[in-house]
């Protein structure tokens, strides 16, 4: 079985430092991490490979070349191939153009299933998976919480989908695009100590516009029709801190606080 996982590396905005005095996000030293929903999708693929070792996993990411190190770390986790779609011409592409670029590459590949995350930490529009479904003429489901492993090899995916108030189960014929969310709790395995410095450079493939042959006016900023009308920084409020001693009085304060919040 061939699985393609579409992944994106994003700033680790869940663990940023906020400067309350200047009311700004401290951007220095913000790490790039694998988008948590994408990590969950890849984790499911690796789980399948662990169970069925003949499974072939390709990770595809559209990003600058600076993320090659992170793609190599995915290969060290037992991914078979990493494809980086990278070209100066693609810089600034909106979600629609990004989907077109990805679709052009994917159309030339053989696969049984495409796995993606549902949301990205940085943009959170969730456009790309659905647009890819349209461009590739494939069924696409977002907010996937669980995929039945037993039927997966039989070209059928039975998936539980979070529909906010209810969880619905769908039966989807493969190939399809399944967009997983991190609440699925599929956990990306760690790199084994013995593989930490494994040379995986041979399994990194860089795809540029030379390979995809877009007219430069079709892609990048020029080709992107999405216009951002307004942005605003999220305001963070500094929480009040109360210090108590480790004594009866302190315990009472903590108990009363938890009670007001409904925890006890």
């Amino acid at each position, binding site marked *: 079985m061939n699985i393609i996982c579409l992944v994106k590396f994003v700033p680790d905005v869940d663990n940023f430092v906020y400067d309350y005095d200047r009311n700004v996000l401290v951007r220095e030293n913000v*790490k790039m991490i694998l988008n948590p929903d994408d990590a969950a999708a890849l984790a499911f693929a690796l789980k399948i490979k662990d169970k069925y070792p003949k499974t072939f996993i390709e990770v595809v990411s559209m990003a600058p070349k600076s993320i090659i190190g992170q793609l190599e770390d995915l290969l060290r986790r037992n991914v078979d191939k990493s494809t980086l779609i990278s070209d100066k011409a693609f810089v600034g592409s909106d979600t629609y153009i990004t989907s077109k670029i990805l679709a052009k590459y994917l159309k030339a590949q053989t696969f049984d299933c495409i796995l993606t995350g549902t949301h990205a930490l940085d943009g959170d529009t969730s456009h790309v998976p659905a647009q890819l479904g349209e461009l590739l003429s494939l069924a696409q489901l977002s907010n996937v919480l669980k995929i039945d492993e037993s039927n997966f090899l039989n070209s059928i995916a039975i998936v539980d989908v979070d529909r906010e108030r209810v969880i619905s189960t769908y039966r989807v014929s493969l190939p399809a695009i399944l967009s997983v969310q991190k609440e699925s709790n599929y956990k990306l395995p760690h790199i084994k*100590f013995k593989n930490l410095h494994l040379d995986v450079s041979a399994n990194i493939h860089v795809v540029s516009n030379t390979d995809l042959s877009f007219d430069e006016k079709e892609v990048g900023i020029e080709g992107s029709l999405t216009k951002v009308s307004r942005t605003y920084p999220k305001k963070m409020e500094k929480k009040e801190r109360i*210090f108590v001693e480790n004594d009866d009085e302190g315990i009472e304060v903590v108990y009363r606080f938890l009670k007001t919040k409904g925890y006890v």
Partner: protein
Amino acid sequence: MNKNELLEGLLSILTVEQINTNEADLYDASADRYKKYAKARKVLDVPMPMAIVYPNSAEEVSKLLMFCNEHLINVIARGGKTATEGGLENWKELTIVIDAENLNKIIKIDDYNMQATAQAGVRLQELEDELRKIGYTTGHSPQSKPVAKMGGLVATRSIGQFSTLYGGIEDMVVGLECVFPNGHISRIKNVSRRAGGPDIRHIAIGNEGTLCYITEVTVKIFKYFPENHKFYGYLIKDVETGIKILREVMVNGYRPSVARTYSEEDARQHFYHFHKDKCVLIFMAEGNKETVEATCRGIEQAVENFKEGILEYVDSKHIESWFNHLNWSQKDIDDEFEGMLEKDYHAGFTTEISADWETIPKIYDSVINRVRSEFERADDLTMLGGHSSHSYINGTNMYFVYNYNINCDPEDEMRIYHHPLQRIIVEETLKFGGSMCHHHGIGKFRNEWTTEEHGSAYFMLEKLKEAFDPNGIMNFGTIYYQEEGAKYQK
């Protein structure tokens, strides 16, 4: 020798109740707190011992050691199981653990001659509680006091939180009984001082179960005056200022029971309620009224002498309250274990070193810089700092403390995180001429530097092993480097 033959041999010495082959207990005996996370996650990579035995007397220990010596069975001596450096970890298939559980009697408390005798398996807390009832103290108070046992404390050259006044365990032991691999039982008598050749107490003190098995110890006791305790706390400019004030107090002849300097990072995790992101300096004075008053004057004068480095005074009740909750009980250990089952997290690690006054700040800066620039997982560090907590007239210790997010499998944690950090600390300490272990012992994971630690004096350590344990049955891999054990380290 197979397991059945081993058990048959043990049964010729002990009763069946004194031999434990329960699988869960043997797994627990495979490693100590050094590999606590891997142990909790059931992924230990070392063999289990074949049995745990509980002798009732020094004579039974003697028979056990003779049996093991004859059949080349590795022996691990065990007390309260609070070891943190791999001293209780097993690296041999054919191994027994000799547990001091049944050597549990306080033999004598002698308040006229100011000494107390206890068997190896007596918990320090138990002895301390008995002494407190009559107004005395051992003066020994490691964080592990509620759990640690007398034999283990002596075997690892333990130190307590009040060491600056009372000294380390080596200053407290007046005599002891120990058993060697050939079965010989040695009793070192209890006297106030002696000059009968080299001080042979020190062959047993700190041997970490590699030369002999300690069965009984006699320690000094001290009058206890809790009503006189005085506490001091300060926010200070930097670690170096703190070290200078500690030195000022010590070199002027004062002996506070506690004298500590914390880096900003370490202060943050200990003193959440007052640290204000600054370094912290604390003192405690204890003893009789006159001594405490003199010590307090000494502390206040030292602080005055370096007042440009003092940022703020801390209410002494915060320091007192903190001390009252510092020790970790068996419940704390169990809670941490349970926590590690649920989360990819534990309470962190420490590496403790020592050096003279001049060198300690250099080692501290050098280690911190090297970790920040060289450690591959520096991004995962959630805390890196340290404190000086035991001072002497010629120098002090540094307790490096580090926590990190564990982004690896439990079985790889030590190799990816702790070992590289410990290596940097040890290498920098030895480079500057300090000692790589202040009070945890060498255990099994600093043994690759034992020769460098001792230099030309390693000759003496080597000869002790050859003389007392020629068959190498005592705690294989502890203190002395073993190539065969490298697979568990690297």
